[in-house]
């Protein structure tokens, strides 16, 4: 806790700390998506309950959810130390990582429309974060 307290006392350090933390969150969040997608392959659950139970029986799905949970908790910590308006553009990186990893791991194809859509969404999320500044 002393490290966090020290970081909080120094605004520049606090900002740097929160940005680094959000960056880590984007990587964890993207890994979570890839694991979740991988975990759904070969699953046949049709009812919500069966699907719910499969989350606990599929290691990939479970790991995906766990990483998602961890990245969300770290994000909450980061938001405590940094400004939303600065952090949101970084959060948008998650979309970039997910698309890149989907191409590398699942052999998905990108095309100009998808890239334009991705960039527009990331810009939209960044502007939304800036506009939400208190």
């Amino acid at each position, binding site marked *: 806790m002393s490290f966090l307290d020290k970081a909080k006392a120094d605004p520049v350090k606090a900002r740097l700390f929160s940005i680094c933390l959000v960056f880590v969150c984007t990587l964890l969040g993207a890994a979570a*998506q*890839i694991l*979740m*997608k991988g975990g*759904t*392959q070969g*699953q046949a659950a049709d009812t*919500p309950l069966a*699907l*719910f139970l499969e*989350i606990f029986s599929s290691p990939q*799905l479970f790991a995906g*959810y766990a990483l998602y949970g961890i990245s969300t908790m770290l994000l909450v910590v980061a938001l405590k130390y940094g400004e939303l308006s600065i952090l949101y553009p970084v959060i948008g990186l998650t*979309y970039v990582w*997910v*698309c890149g990893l*989907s*191409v590398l791991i*699942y052999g*998905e*194809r*990108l*095309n*100009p*429309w*998808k*890239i*334009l*859509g*991705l*960039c*527009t*969404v*990331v*810009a*939209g*999320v*960044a*502007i*939304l*974060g*800036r*506009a*939400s500044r208190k």
Partner: protein
Amino acid sequence: MNSTPTSSILLVFAASFVGSIGAAFLKSGAEHLHREVRSLLTNWRLAVGILFFVASSLLYIKGIKVGELTVLYPMVSLGYVWTMFWSRLFFREPLTGGKFLGLSLIGLGIVFLALGNR
């Protein structure tokens, strides 16, 4: 033949909508929290919020099972649009020009992604 079926896109849309309702309940639950553990456990708003989140995540999982993450994952950002709507409606948060621009870009981006789905 599109690589991502419309049913998957609709499931992810539904997931983003249901998830935003969950977020609204969590927010309203958080406003009713006091500094004691009991208020965390007996807070029905938080419980409803979590239920909506679970439902949303099941819809999402079902959606991404078939289809491409390059199309479906950025569509999750549609949740921001619904959330801003609830924030305006229930929490009286102002919808500024900047927010409107951000939301419009997200909407436009999703249209582009749908066009790129082939």
